[in-house]
């Protein structure tokens, strides 16, 4: 035990025991972030705030929500939306927040791809980020089931059904996931558990991992420049703030993030109060009815692109059924972003537009994902089915081609 001297203030008392001074330095005032960044680097902080908002609003909803097929719908749409004071506010914040968080996740992800922030030492940031993406997807999917509306039910039905395509164990797997032969009360209660306990816990763990993974390789910057953080930090601490290439997390980096957050929140609350249909689908205000299939079944917008990859293969090729092909493509789509750091064979860490070949790949991918998303919602009939097929194929081909494209790029730029 170290020797303790009498503390002169409350602050000192705590500092002696918890090392507050040191902690604040390590986490905030001497955690160095590159200066050369734009507002896209605020997305991480926005996501942290959104996650907090979702947790808090979720806790309020949890006080009145009833996970039971006979009560769930009314507990949400009557008790919470109309009886409990400001219950509607928490529901709107939670439902719209769950949708908007994916918008920010996608911006955050594609920022990472655009600036090459997933390679040359940043692989673990990327992997932990993808883990968060998968966990958020699970959280979004399980949460959407809870109000037990028509879309809750039928999206759950269609998505769990997908697992039936897994060879050998498919049928059993579906029953295992649903806890019954069809989507039923046991399905609701287990997804309730996942939504309010297991997945949020895992998300918190993954966020810690993600933040930790940022510490050693450091955050990337607008030019993809590598420099000596220790030297730049020394410069900053010595008072040469203007010439140093870094700024401390607090207050400099966060002061900018707060501004970005403020602008974002105005937009977010506009959606919450005045424009929420995109996140609270009208169809879901019909109570779940297992005997009445809605005319159009579609998942939430953030799943549409991968849903369309699944639907895109609607005919048999080389003796393999369209359903199996779709399932394979779907599985690839879920996993392929994880291995992006290894598919990109070019050593360049630069914004995509400064990379001779990668820039085409990046913008092609963006266009393809938008096409997939839009056609994932439209009914897959006539020409739509073929657009779906073409854009699904494009998606796969883009990722097959990436190693070759980036290899050629590496050769062209000569290992820079």
């Amino acid at each position, binding site marked *: 035990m170290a020797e303790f001297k009498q503390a002169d203030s409350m602050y000192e008392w705590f500092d002696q025991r918890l090392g507050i001074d040191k902690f604040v330095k390590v986490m905030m005032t001497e955690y160095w972030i590159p200066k050369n960044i734009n507002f896209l680097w605020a997305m991480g902080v926005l996501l942290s705030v959104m996650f907090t908002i979702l947790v808090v609003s979720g806790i309020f909803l949890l006080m009145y929500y009833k996970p039971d097929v006979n009560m769930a719908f009314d507990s949400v749409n009557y008790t919470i939306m109309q009886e409990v004071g400001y219950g509607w506010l928490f529901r709107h914040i939670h439902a719209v927040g769950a949708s908007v968080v994916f918008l920010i996740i996608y911006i955050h992800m594609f920022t990472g791809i655009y600036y090459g922030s997933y390679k040359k030492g940043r692989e673990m940031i990327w992997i932990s980020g993808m883990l968060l993406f998968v966990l958020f997807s699970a959280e979004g999917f399980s949460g959407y089931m809870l109000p037990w509306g028509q879309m809750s039910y039928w999206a759950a039905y269609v998505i769990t059904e997908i697992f039936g395509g897994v060879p050998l164990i498919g049928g059993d797997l579906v029953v295992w996931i649903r806890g019954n032969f069809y989507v039923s009360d046991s399905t609701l209660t287990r997804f309730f558990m996942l939504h309010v306990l297991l997945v949020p816990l895992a998300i918190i763990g993954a966020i810690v991992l993600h933040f930790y993974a940022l510490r050693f390789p450091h955050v990337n910057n607008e030019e993809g420049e590598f420099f000596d953080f220790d030297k730049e930090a020394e410069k900053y601490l010595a008072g040469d703030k203007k010439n140093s290439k870094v700024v401390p997390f607090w207050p400099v980096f966060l002061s900018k993030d707060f501004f970005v957050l403020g602008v974002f929140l105005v937009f977010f609350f506009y959606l919450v109060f*005045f424009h929420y249909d995109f996140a609270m689908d009208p169809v879901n*205000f019909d109570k779940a009815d297992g005997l009445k299939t809605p005319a159009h079944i579609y998942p939430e917008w953030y799943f549409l692109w991968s849903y369309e990859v699944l639907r895109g293969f609607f005919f048999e090729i080389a003796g393999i059924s369209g359903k199996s092909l779709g399932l394979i493509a779907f599985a690839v789509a879920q996993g392929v972003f994880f291995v992006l750091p290894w598919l990109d064979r070019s050593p360049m860490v630069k914004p995509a537009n400064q990379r001779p070949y990668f820039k085409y790949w990046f913008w092609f991918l963006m266009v393809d994902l938008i096409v997939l998303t*839009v056609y994932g919602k439209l009914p897959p009939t006539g020409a739509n089915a073929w657009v779906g097929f073409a854009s699904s194929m494009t998606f796969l081909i883009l990722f097959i081609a990436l190693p070759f494209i980036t290899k050629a790029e590496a050769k062209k730029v000569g290992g820079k």
Partner: protein
Amino acid sequence: MKELKILAIIAALVGITYYGIEPYAHHIMHPEVKAADFQFKDLKNVDTSLAGNVDNGKVLVEANCIACHSLESAGHAKTMLDTDAAAAYGVVPPDLSSAGRIYDKNYLANFIFDPVSAMHLSHKYPAGGAKAFPMPSYNWMSGQEIMDVVAYLQSVTPKVVGKDTHKATYDAACGRCHSMSYAKSEATTPKDAVKAYMGATPPDLSQYIKSRQEHYLHGFINDPQLLLAGTSMPRVGLSEKAQEEVIAYMEETGDSKKAERERVGLWVMLYTFVFAILAYLWKRKIWSEVH
């Protein structure tokens, strides 16, 4: 400025995606149909320009209608319990007190002339089919007589004003078949009876303002077959004003916090806006030291 350019690119990508999955997809999945017609122009059996005679109408109503219908506003009370009436007729016959207020005049006249064609339910009750609509056609009456009946019904309808009309109109127009549990309102005709009579159980309307929304309801109530071909729901023939009252009642029941939501929304946005401005000023101060 570079950051504004980035923002513009993101806004464009998000905007295109949004347009595709919301307005455009909606337009594809729910094609626009003919605009609502509150004159019920397709109904031409009765010359509605004739001026009705209230006294003669009274005689005709007492001779022809009150055998089945009550008319409480003129002192003709119900003679049967709802359940018995439903068993006898298939559905509880409406009390006619508000008929003159809520139904369009042209519709009402043509309905009396031939209910099934006015309701657009010929597919449920084809002429000479096994199932007959409980109310007979009064196509033997002259146009003048029908207009007398209409004039009389309009003269006895009690005055309802303000918000009370919302519930009154809903009860009279929809409440015989539909329940609305969030308004603690149960269909006056028992469920099984309606099902036997119409071939389907009418849905509970508590959340229909949210699931169908105003735009759809506006067209649907006016003429259900246009938006849901083959449905058992009759065209009820509400005047535009009465239909608005019904929709208002559905909103008061299904979206009771709308006014509060819009009021609070403005304050919250204002608050965050001020936050954003203060944050900007703070950021400028902080970053002036490092740039």
